[in-house]
């Protein structure tokens, strides 16, 4: 692998990271930073979904199961067992991954594909939500609060900017990880499964093992988003953690940004939440306006830009290149 090769692969990621990192220096507005943190958080959840759905072609409708497991794990470990916040964060990521492996093992081993897999993941997330709402350890319907104690060792900061840089670091880490997957054997096998599972098996790909690795990784990333969410808002309940909203957002942002691309989920999340904020400014707080907007955007993307914003930009770029020639 040559140096220039590596530069074209990772250069854009570092450029984007640098550009996003200076945002808190340009604005002191808490509203802007808050919106940016939320957008990056959703982007991170979507990056997790994109590993399994975008690269592996296994569409999950239930990534809330992983987001929620991450959120609850970090909250419960701190609130009930007094575990250090950073250690709880790491444990939350591991537990989220474990939930992914469990759901993946049960559904992939039975050969569930396509809409059947999607429905099963949806069902798992709902089961998790109902259980979380009914068991004492999660605080039931009252939810779980993380005690406010603003100290860095508690993963609590007075400044929104620090939270912003942390979630940005997570997003950038996953951008790099995704690029690495694109360029290694695991990624090649994963994409082969998406394109044609039988052909992959004939070529010696252990499809069950590859899909399990993918869902384990995917769930870990989305669980990190959930754990960060809990740490940022210091509160979780079942409708936040295991709610359908996050399953929808996690799949929506990669589809809008560009399925199976490194930047897709991030671009989708920034576009979606940028648009949502603008609508809120213009239209005020009309209940359900954001959902109506998401629906419209999804229809438009599927109809006119099936490869998302990423594909659209590439097509326009190619068109311009052609025109110049």
């Amino acid at each position, binding site marked *: *692998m040559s140096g220039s090769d590596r530069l074209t692969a990772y250069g854009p990621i570092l450029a984007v990271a640098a550009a996003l990192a200076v945002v808190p220096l340009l604005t002191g507005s808490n509203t802007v930073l808050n919106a940016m943190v939320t957008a990056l958080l959703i982007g991170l959840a979507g990056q997790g979904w994109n590993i399994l759905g975008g690269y592996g072609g296994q569409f999950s409708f239930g990534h809330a199961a992983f987001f929620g497991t991450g959120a609850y794990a970090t909250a419960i470990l701190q609130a009930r067992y007094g575990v250090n916040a950073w250690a709880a964060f790491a444990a939350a990521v591991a537990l989220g991954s474990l939930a992914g492996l469990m759901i993946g093992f049960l559904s992939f081993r039975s050969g569930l594909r396509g809409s059947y897999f999607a429905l099963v993941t949806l069902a798992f997330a709902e089961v998790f939500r109902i259980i979380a709402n009914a068991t004492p350890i999660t605080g039931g319907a009252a939810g779980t609060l993380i005690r406010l104690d603003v100290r860095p060792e508690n993963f609590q900061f007075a400044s929104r900017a620090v939270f912003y840089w942390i979630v940005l670091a997570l997003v950038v880490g996953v951008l790099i990880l995704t690029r690495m997957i694109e*360029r*290694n*054997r695991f990624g*090649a*096998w994963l*994409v*082969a499964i*998406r*394109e*044609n599972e*039988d*052909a*992959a*098996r*004939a*070529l*010696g*790909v*252990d*499809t069950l093992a590859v899909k399990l690795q993918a869902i384990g990784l995917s769930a870990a990333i989305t669980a990190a988003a959930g754990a960060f969410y809990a740490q940022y808002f210091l509160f979780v309940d079942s409708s936040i953690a295991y709610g359908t909203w996050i399953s929808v957002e996690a799949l929506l942002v990669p589809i809008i940004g560009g399925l199976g691309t490194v930047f897709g989920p991030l671009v989708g999340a920034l576009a979606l939440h940028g648009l949502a904020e603008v609508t809120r400014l213009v239209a005020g707080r009309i209940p359900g306006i954001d959902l109506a907007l998401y629906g419209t955007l999804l229809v438009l993307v599927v109809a006119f830009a099936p490869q998302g914003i990423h594909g659209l930009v590439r097509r326009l770029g190619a068109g311009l290149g052609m025109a110049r020639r």
Partner: protein
Amino acid sequence: MSAPLLAVAPLLAVEAATKRFGGLTAVDAASLTVERGSITGLIGPNGAGKTTLFTLISGFERPSAGRILFEGADIAGLPPHERARRGIARTFQIVQPFAGLTVRENIAVGAHLRLRDRDAALAEAERVAALVGLGERLDAPASGLTVAGRKRLELARALATRPVLLLLDEVLAGLNPSEVRDIVPVVRAIRDGGVTILMVEHVMQAVMSLCDTVHVLAQGRIIAAGPPVAVTANPTVIEAYLGHGAAKRLARGGAHG
């Protein structure tokens, strides 16, 4: 019975393999052997069970009864990827390209079976593409290939796994005569490169020119085996293809006396 010497043991031996789908017996106690270094043909009328027998050998289906010995070991219970690792590669009768990937990326998936490194797999893909005549189309999307091109891609991908035994399922079907003439030497070159080949084929011209041995399957049973010339003259085989009494009628008419 004493164990046969390794040198004379066939590379592949299917022993009384049976596959039932509910009440239908698609393959009925079929036995065949494939000698190391040979090109062996599997022919038979439509619906004879050739593709089913292939799926039993490649592992996509498990036999209801019988054994499948590869290099002396029974592999009947192994999943397809495990058999690929041991050196059995297959192509699909209905081509199964990774449509969204380029030719190079398609072949690299096969090469990754033996090569972990991405760059090494991509380089190997280039080498194999040249072998099957796809060297000029490396960066073309697989979905943009012609039927003949996709058949070559199937071949290249399977070959990139560095197989010991290559199973070709009607790799010539759907090609025009000039395309058939182009691919026949490619198949022969693969064998000359040390890969044993078992092929299901309908294009008899190719079977006659390529195969050392031919097995004939009809209604799930092996009804004849031997050199192609002998097999095609076998009255049982002629009747399987053309119906009861056909061999006699042909002999009387003397059309192919």
